[in-house]
């Protein structure tokens, strides 16, 4: 069971080796990748920032919950921090289980809970030069959405 943050490319093969188990007949992985659009806007790159001590604790809690809820033999999750380009792997999850149903369900649980609970933030940089922290917009304000250069103008 391990939830890790990394500011470099994710080494999936090493992580898979850690989940080898003679009783694991099913092995499910999920990769979340940087997409070129969000809410109709063209994304050119993004940055992830994490509150590392609490992100790793909350991530470990999610993996423990998955072990309690589903019949799995192991699970791992790695999330990137720093600057990512289109197509880069932002989050990688693997679940090993005796059978496929539990492996798929646990993998889904881990990605959903990670997105909802782990203190990691994403700043998207759009093709038009604007950048925004996702989910942080407030009324009458584009929450960090001022063009880079226009900061402090408010």
């Amino acid at each position, binding site marked *: 069971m391990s939830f890790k943050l990394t500011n470099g490319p994710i080494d999936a093969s090493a992580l898979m080796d850690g989940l080898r188990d003679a009783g694991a007949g099913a092995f499910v992985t999920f990769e*979340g990748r940087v997409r070129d659009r969000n809410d109709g806007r063209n994304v050119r790159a993004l940055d*992830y*920032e*994490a*509150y590392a*001590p*609490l*992100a790793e*604790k*909350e991530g470990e809690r999610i993996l423990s919950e998955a072990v309690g809820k589903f019949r799995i033999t192991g699970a791992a999750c790695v*999330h990137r921090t720093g600057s990512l380009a289109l197509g880069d792997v*932002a*989050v990688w999850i693997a679940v090993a289980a005796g059978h496929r149903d539990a492996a798929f369900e646990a993998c889904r649980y881990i*990605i959903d809970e*990670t*997105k*909802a*609970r*782990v*203190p*990691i*933030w*994403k*700043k998207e940089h759009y093709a038009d030069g604007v950048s925004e*922290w*996702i*989910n*942080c917009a*407030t009324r009458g*304000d584009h*929450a*960090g959405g001022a063009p880079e250069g226009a*900061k402090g103008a408010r």
Partner: protein
Amino acid sequence: MKKWVRVSYFAILREQRGIGEERVATDAATAAELYEELRGLHRFTLPPDRLRVAINDEFAPWNSAVRDGDALVFVPPVAGG
């Protein structure tokens, strides 16, 4: 007597504050009071109902007491994955 706490900022709060961390002397009794104090000073755009608070690297209720030496983080809406 004022308490000294360490406040760390992430993401939009870090940008709005202009720094990642600071020591703050405060009379605030609770985490909620401390956020209101800092929000007034630094014009943070996020209202407290959009944030969570962590004290000493664990999520905590907004009405948690602020104690001398505590490390606080106001956690903006998360967006991992």
